[in-house]
């Protein structure tokens, strides 16, 4: 059995009594930096994009200021989150990518049951792993949206260094990425804050832990695997401990 995929280097273990660690500190920093800078970018971007939102820019001192804030927060949006893939304990970030880009048959089953769940009903689908189909789609929209909005944003920022044909295409790409991510974030916030079942997941993005009860109901496969890994880890600890003691004993 492949052990220690998620519990490695976390000696305390991830399951503490009735809670289980779902998101590391790094993941939570990434999430909130991305979230806050996204809304700053959305607000300032809409001010440039549409006359409807332009008057609101007076809050921050006008459209010109909005453009500067837009570029500064764009750097935070991209660089800080990008850095989190390489500093601290980035294995969680990479593992998230691995989960998200592995879209399985049971994920489709979750997605097809999702509309029912969204409006408060209950659908039938196999117990998901750490991320269910809907969460994977949300992650994919965020990842792809971020990549495309960043690339098109660079072209728009340094428009004079790129051929006009490319700059012309950067505008609709930037707009489309924004629209997809905005639609996704509306649903994401509903599920995290307002949906009676799934809002229990919110604590995972605040202190990192979700209740094992929630994990068992919504991410059964994942919790089961963690428990097995933890058990294997604990067992090996006990063996090591005994071995250590034996060694000590023989020297004396």
């Amino acid at each position, binding site marked *: 059995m492949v052990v220690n995929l998620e519990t490695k280097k976390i000696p305390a273990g991830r399951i503490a*009594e*009735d809670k289980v660690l779902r998101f590391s500190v790094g993941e939570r920093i990434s999430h909130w930096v991305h979230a806050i800078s996204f809304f700053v970018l959305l607000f300032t971007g809409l001010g*440039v*994009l*549409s*006359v409807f939102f*332009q008057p609101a820019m007076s809050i921050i001192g006008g*459209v*010109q200021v909005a*453009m500067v804030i837009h570029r500064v927060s764009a750097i935070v949006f991209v660089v800080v989150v990008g850095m989190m893939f390489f500093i601290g304990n980035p294995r969680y970030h990479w593992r998230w990518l691995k989960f998200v880009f592995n879209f399985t048959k049971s994920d489709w089953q979750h997605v097809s049951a999702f509309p029912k769940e*969204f*409006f*408060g*009903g209950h659908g039938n689908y196999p117990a998901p792993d750490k991320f269910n189909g809907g969460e994977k789609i949300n992650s994919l929209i965020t990842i792809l949206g971020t990549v495309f909005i960043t690339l098109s944003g660079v072209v728009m920022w340094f*428009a004079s260094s790129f051929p*006009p*044909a490319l*700059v*012309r*295409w950067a*505008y*609709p790409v930037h*707009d*489309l990425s924004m*629209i*997809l991510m*905005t*639609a*996704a974030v*509306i*649903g994401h*916030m*509903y599920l995290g804050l*307002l*949906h*009676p*079942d799934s809002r*229990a997941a919110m604590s995972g993005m605040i*202190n990192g832990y979700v*209740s094992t*009860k929630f994990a068992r109901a919504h991410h059964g496969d994942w919790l089961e695997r963690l428990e097995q890994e933890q058990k294997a880890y604990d067992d090996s600890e006990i063996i090591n401990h005994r071995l250590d003691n034996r060694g000590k004993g023989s020297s004396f």
Partner: protein
Amino acid sequence: MTRKMVLVDTSKCTGCKACSVACKEWNELPAEKTKLITSYQTHKDFTTKTWTYMTFLEKYEKQSMNWLMRKAQCFHCADPACLKACSSNAIAKTESGFVVIDQEKCTGCGYCVENCPFGVPKVDPIKKKAYKCTGCIERVENNLLPACVYTCQPGALSFGERDAMLGQAKDRLAKVQKTHPKAQLYGEKEMGGSTFLYLLLDSPEVYGLPINPTIPLSLTLWKDVIRPVGGIAVGGAAAAVVIGVFANLFRGNYRQSDEKVENDSGDSDRKKGGKD
């Protein structure tokens, strides 16, 4: 005011550049340091302070030289890409057919710059405003000729009602074609029919003009497809959330889940002494 037209008859142009001087004078645009681009051409491109300039081209063919000159300025399209691209409603089209930028409303985003098929508007990086030829709209609306037309000595520029001017242009073309078989009108159909219409002595590409200028596909896709469909998508997501909240309320899911949470957390809180 009816639709107007300026005929730029390049067969009559002598390349004296008086039009660009008149433009600078009337519009109070400062002179800029220039250098030779080709034999007689002194401006390479439009700037925020140069709204019209002359292009010069020596074309050698069959042991003879054709001197092709063209006064470049905004075409004032009937179907302007800049207007479609503008995100702050700063660009407008007058009844007389001139496309004007309102610098009060302009935010300097530069979308017009990138989408104009002729590369006409330019953004001042300090003022953050876009500038281009206004067609001397304030003169035209007071029954005066645009400054460039007013000053043109050889009669290469003429101004009038579009319908009448178009007839004149065609008559003139028939004459010019006897000596210049490749001569053609440019701007009759291009971009919906431009207010500045050219009689060119050769094909547009020789002058560096696009053969079939159009509103870029990316711009149409952006403004006519992505924008409305995206609006529906975002609105739909918001509507789904509102419906979701009400659906859950009606099903009594909030009551259930609150009870559940109370029961669950009640136990664990006691265990931990409410530390969390």
